[in-house]
């Protein structure tokens, strides 16, 4: 994919959130997108047609992260109210509330079969929640982190989480070991490459770092954007050819994966770009910002 195929044209603006939008995520097939924000709501959109479909209200404070199962039937969300909410998508009802985090919950993800949700909290812990049984206690609490856990990713056998203590820790369930990669800088957000071999970690020194997962080697660093105080998302494009991420000045950056050059940058939002999410198949991207808008970008 060449640089010209990058989604740089604004296709739709999704408006509806009041206040900052903290996360925007495509669903598994990329037909819908979910957003959540400071207004305590989760919203379901059709980003391609620019339609607001549904609003999920139940959170008591801001919603920081949301994730949807591959079959689009359930949602998991978390936020400032220290709870993880397990939703039914169609009815909009909360199926279960998982309480246990001692502080705000920063991120949450479903496991592959949507049987477990893993949440990362400001209380320096990862908690795994059982979505199958009626048990609302966490299955396991991982608290080897030394600071707030900002982001979590799941593979089939591993839980990967990035923390402000500068580490990206991989918990391999199959082998039963923990691999800690210390980056020396607070890790804001981690993102898996589509081939699953690399981790992209956004650090608070305005640098994205690409790590090889097997060796823990630093493959590349991507600089140019500003990321010093906010939690900004980053991700790889669907082809793994480029890396994209927001900046605190409202810009969106595209880097070449291999030579780390800034391929494209443009002003997308009036304020901090909090979240970026790339379409799983097409050249399409949604970005969310503090300016309460979600923008859909296509080629």
């Amino acid at each position, binding site marked *: 994919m060449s640089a010209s195929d990058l989604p740089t044209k604004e296709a739709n603006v999704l408006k509806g959130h009041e206040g900052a939008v903290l996360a925007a995520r495509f669903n598994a097939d990329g037909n819908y997108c979910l957003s959540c924000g400071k207004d305590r709501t989760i919203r379901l959109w059709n980003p391609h047609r620019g339609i607001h479909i549904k609003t999920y209200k139940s959170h008591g404070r801001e919603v920081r992260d949301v994730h949807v199962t591959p079959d689009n039937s359930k949602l998991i969300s978390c936020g400032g109210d220290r709870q993880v909410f397990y939703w039914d998508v169609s009815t909009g009802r909360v199926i279960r509330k998982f309480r246990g985090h001692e502080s705000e919950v920063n991120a949450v993800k479903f496991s592959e079969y949507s049987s477990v949700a893993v949440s990362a909290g400001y209380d320096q812990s990862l908690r*795994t929640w059982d979505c199958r049984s009626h048990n609302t206690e966490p299955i396991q609490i991982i608290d080897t982190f030394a600071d707030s856990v900002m982001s979590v990713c799941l593979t089939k056998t591993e839980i990967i989480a990035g923390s402000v203590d500068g580490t990206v820790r991989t*918990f391999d*369930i199959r082998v*039963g070991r*923990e691999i800690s990669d210390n980056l020396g800088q607070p890790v804001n957000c981690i993102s898996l490459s589509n081939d699953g071999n690399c981790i992209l970690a956004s650090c608070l020194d305005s640098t994205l770092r690409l790590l090889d997962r097997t060796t823990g080697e*630093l493959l590349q660093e991507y600089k140019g954007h500003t990321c010093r105080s906010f939690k900004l998302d980053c991700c790889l494009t669907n082809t793994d050819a480029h890396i994209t991420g927001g900046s605190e000045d409202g810009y969106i950056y595209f880097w070449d994966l291999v030579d780390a050059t800034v391929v494209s940058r443009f002003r997308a939002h009036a304020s901090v770009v909090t979240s970026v999410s790339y379409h799983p198949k097409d050249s399409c991207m949604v970005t969310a910002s503090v300016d309460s808008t979600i923008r859909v970008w296509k080629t």
Partner: protein
Amino acid sequence: MDERDLVFYGTPIEREEELSSRKKKAVAEASGQLRTLPTWKQEVRDEEGRRRFHGAFTGGYSAGYYNTVGSKEGWAPQTFTSSRKNRAEVKQQSILNFLDDDEKADMEGRSLATSTQFDTFGFTASEVARKQADKEQDKRPSAIPGPVPDELVLPAAESIGVKLLLKMGWRHGRSIKDSSTDSLYDARREARKAFIAFSSSDDTKSNIDGDANHENDHSNSLERPVNDDNLSSQYTALNALQPKQDLHGLGYDPYKHAPEFREKKRSRVSGTQGPGNSKALTISDNLFGSKSGKAGPGFGIGALEEYDIEDEDVYTTAYDFEDTVVQEVEDSSKPMTDHKHRLTWKEPGILPGFKVASISDYQVEKFNAPEVPKDFVPRHKFAGPLKVEDKTAVPPPPDVPPPQDSNMKVLIEGVATLVGRCGKLFEDLSREKNQSNPSFGFLMGGNGHEYYERKLWEAQQKYKDQKKLPLPSDGKSSQKTEKMNAENRGKILGERPLERSSSSLVSPDVNLQSNLSDTFMKPLQFSELPEVSKPFKDNSAKQERFQQFLKEKYKGGLRSGDSGGASNMSEAARAQERLDFELAAEALEKANRGQQSNLSAQQSMDFLTSAGMQFTSAGVESKDTLDKDFEMKKMYPKREEYQWRPSPVLCKRFDLVDPYMGKLPPPPRMRGKIDSLVFKAEFIPVPRIEDKTGQNQNRSSGGLQSSAQGVRDGSADEEEDEVVVEFENVERPVDLYKAIFSDDSDEEAETSKVSKVEDPEKKVEVANATLNRLMAGDFLESLGKELGLEVPPDLPPYSHTNQNPSALEKETTGLNLRDGSSVKMVAEVPKSMDDQSPPRGKLDEVKVVKITEEDRKQESPPPSEDRMDRRHSKRQRRYDNISDSYSSSSGDDSDQDRYSSKSKGRRKKGSSSRDKKSSSSRKHSRRRHHRGDESREYSSSRSSRREKDRGESKREKRKRRD
């Protein structure tokens, strides 16, 4: 179709003609029969022509509804109504229920009652009044539910008797019988009336254009019943009862002790009950008035909800609401009294009979702000360089030619410089000291005294100047910017003056020629730094930056944004460098202080350079900042691996096989404070003690500046060694249990014995440590005996088959060697720990990583029981065949060393990012490994692998050492 086949529902409509015909017939019959038929044949029929009387078998006589169940609607089952629910609705039958229409019509107008005209005793009137009261009571909410008691309701209209009495001269409240009291009563009454009139008129006067009439009336009406009550009990006609409008209990008087407030309230009530008010208004007012105090909270939110901005707003509006409503009512009713009421209400605390003073003695004292002079400029300007001591300074002594004796001149100048720098005290001291020395005669006013005076003054000036001189690099921001001239520039650049021109006049100004010339010899800012204090000699740019840093650190003043060429460095590199500088500066300071102590500056600088070596980069050749970044990259990311136990449920949910299936659950993670505390407390002093010796050792062994590679061989041992020392001091007291039952200590004890035998010339510390170990070993031995653990001396599952004695020899010699050299590393530890992100040499890094990896592999001591057995067997063997036991034990020991070095390496790494908590938790996790290993004896393949690993690591180590 036959009619019988059909089913008819409902009642067929009676045809009009039929009904009318029957009626006509009946009428005709009746009239005709009445006239014609005899009495016994006449039939009673109703107006419809129906027969009214039947025989007994056909229902007697028909009354009301003919041949029906007795109701117009026909038969309808009565619905059951519980009398418990609605008792009041029980119907009372009256005669009217059983009467026909005509009978009712007959009864109309025949009820007997006295007309009001002739209501002599007022019964009818009282009846009417009662009814009225009932009606009113329905409308008006009352504190007491139910109908008004009869006794309270009295006829409003006067009975005819009363009227007659009145006509006869009787007055209300007067006894009919007793006429003698009348006159007295009348007199009193008149007096009272007059008083009331007076007071009320007074009242109106005090009012601002008050509605006098109303007030008067009102007070009369209020006064009268009360007074009448007092005077005549029996014949009182209460014109108006005071309805109970408040919600107080019966007989409770809230104004019992504060009657003045009662007045106030009454006036307020009367204000709203004026003649202009409609009834609805008074009611609404009562509602609001009685509840106004409680209206606010009613609008609030639940006690459990958090307060929000909106919620708070609710409260504020509630109070406004109360206020405005009352004002509204008053406004609509009486604009005149309204003013007064509002006044009295708006100012709480003003009692009736008092008014607000217009002039008061009480005044808030005001102090005017100090006047600012007109020519004041709110920004301070420095007229020139600050000269604090100039006022006290004596005029400079005249410049005198130096004495001919050059020695004398040098001496004088030296002493003057010293005194100038150190103060008068030095002069006094030296004078005392050299009382007899003729060459110091200039101090006592002898030969060359003038020259000395002059020199001293110059030195003093120079010193002051130096102190005061703003830093040249801060030239931009400092106030001396405009003073920048050739001389200053020269000072900054360290230029050598062309020639000292003797012709230049010595002005009282500070710019002395000699002063300048002196400072030109060396760059001013670092004249006080010894030459050795240039840790970054090989990198001039860096050295420059370091000097700048030093200046900023010790001299203060404004920081320049751009520090010499550092702008093109990356943020990380700059931070890195800054850390280096901090370190170097600290070392320098120590060096300066250390001049009293045994440590020479050179020594500390040596240390510094070594530190610098360690913290900057591995190679001397890489000095660029880019390389630094590279170093950063080399350093991070750092990979570490730990054991982690996923919960079985998690594995199940992830569809994975639990890697720890069938293993014992991990022991409860206890985060005891004691562990960490002991750990810290014990750890810190160790390097302190060993500091000096370590440095000595270090220097003697060639120092570090040779190359990192050169030191490397030793450093591998050092790494182990330092841990041994540390281990001794740290781990032992942590838990006795471990000390007893794990084989760590045991094997160490053996090792120490080995080393002791082979190396009698040991350091005291090591000897002490060994003693400790021995004691521990003895203790263990005795304990083992007590427990009666006599086990056949079989070999432990991992016998060191792959170790040849030569390697062991090496191991032990390594052990011997390290004692001295180890300390260096220990001394360095606190440095790196203080450092947040210490830039470490490449090799160092590699080493650490390697070792941790080894540790990973190594952390598999045999199960504890097994250990016990082995220990016994080993001990026996030790007594039998010492060398044999040596071989095995020393092998173990090396493992052990590496094992314990893990903690070291961890700590080193962890110190940067991890806090106490996490480090302690790590420790626990390590302990968990121990436990986890107990179960490992089942899997022989694992242990064999471990063996292989160990062998490999050993080989690797050997290779490195070679």
